[in-house]
């Protein structure tokens, strides 16, 4: 693993760890605050969040919608594509419990997303300015769900 990959993987892990405490201020500090048009594309959003106002509103809403949130990243890659720009990809698993009435028990839900991110080199280090989360599509997930059921029902058939 190159120094760049180590550095970016460390940054991504710090970024993802902010989710556990819903420390969105901490997340924001890992973005390029000088970029007037950062873009965040969460998997559950119908349209991209472009600009700080939209991104901050999304983070604020996340605190209300989710009771708990944990995330972990893996399979980090980093590639310098220009003197001050790095393309990073990684996978992220999130586990969340949605907020709601206490009398209705809710199980955590989870999924893996594939992330594409662009980072700019700043005096304080690499900082995000573009981040897109994408799960595999519905058909691939349906296939994965069915494969999991087959494994549960016929564990010896593998």
């Amino acid at each position, binding site marked *: 693993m190159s120094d760049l990959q180590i550095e970016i993987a460390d940054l991504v892990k710090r970024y993802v760890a902010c989710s556990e405490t819903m420390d969105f201020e901490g997340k924001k500090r890992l973005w390029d605050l000088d970029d007037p048009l950062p873009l965040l594309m969460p998997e559950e959003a119908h349209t991209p969040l472009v600009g700080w106002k939209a991104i901050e509103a999304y983070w604020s809403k996340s605190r209300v919608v989710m009771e708990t949130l944990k995330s972990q990243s893996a399979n980090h890659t980093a590639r310098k594509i220009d003197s001050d720009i790095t*393309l990073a990809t990684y996978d992220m698993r999130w586990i969340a419990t949605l907020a709601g009435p206490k009398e209705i028990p809710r199980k955590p839900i989870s999924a893996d997303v594939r992330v594409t991110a662009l980072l700019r080199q700043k005096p304080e280090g690499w900082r995000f300015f573009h981040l897109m989360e994408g799960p595999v599509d519905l058909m691939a997930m349906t296939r994965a769900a069915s494969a999991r059921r087959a494994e549960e029902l016929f564990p010896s058939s593998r």
Partner: protein
Amino acid sequence: MNSEAATLESAVDAWTAAWSHRDTKTIVSLWDEQDAQSSYLPAERHDPLIGSAAVTNYVKTTCTLYNTVRHRAEGVLTRRLSPSLGLAFYELSWMLADDRGPIGGTCRVTAIWRNREDQWHLFHYAEAPLAPLLELQAYYESVAADGLDAIPQRGME
């Protein structure tokens, strides 16, 4: 919109049009074949295709397997990242059809282009679908919107 962005938008248009015509030659010509680390992450794959040989194979397979392919880019946002780098982000509406009929959907695309000799070439392309949980909910809602009388009649009575 400045002329640089317009040129990048034209490259996006050329890319989607080539897919819609199943024009593998043009699709491959828009890919950066000189970049050994180029990556293409389709919506249905967990891991990306790396390098132009893998991408070319994927393109040719998709264009051969289906009788009809349609791609449409909407809400295209472009940014010049450096003199030789361009970023395009858009929502892709797609449709594939074979003898079983069409399938389709939308996904968000991050596409990173490199300008070489005044031509844009893609070297990173990633498709990001909406969360499947929401896709499924939208499907259930669309069936509800059809109403009870829309229950399919299968001629069995």
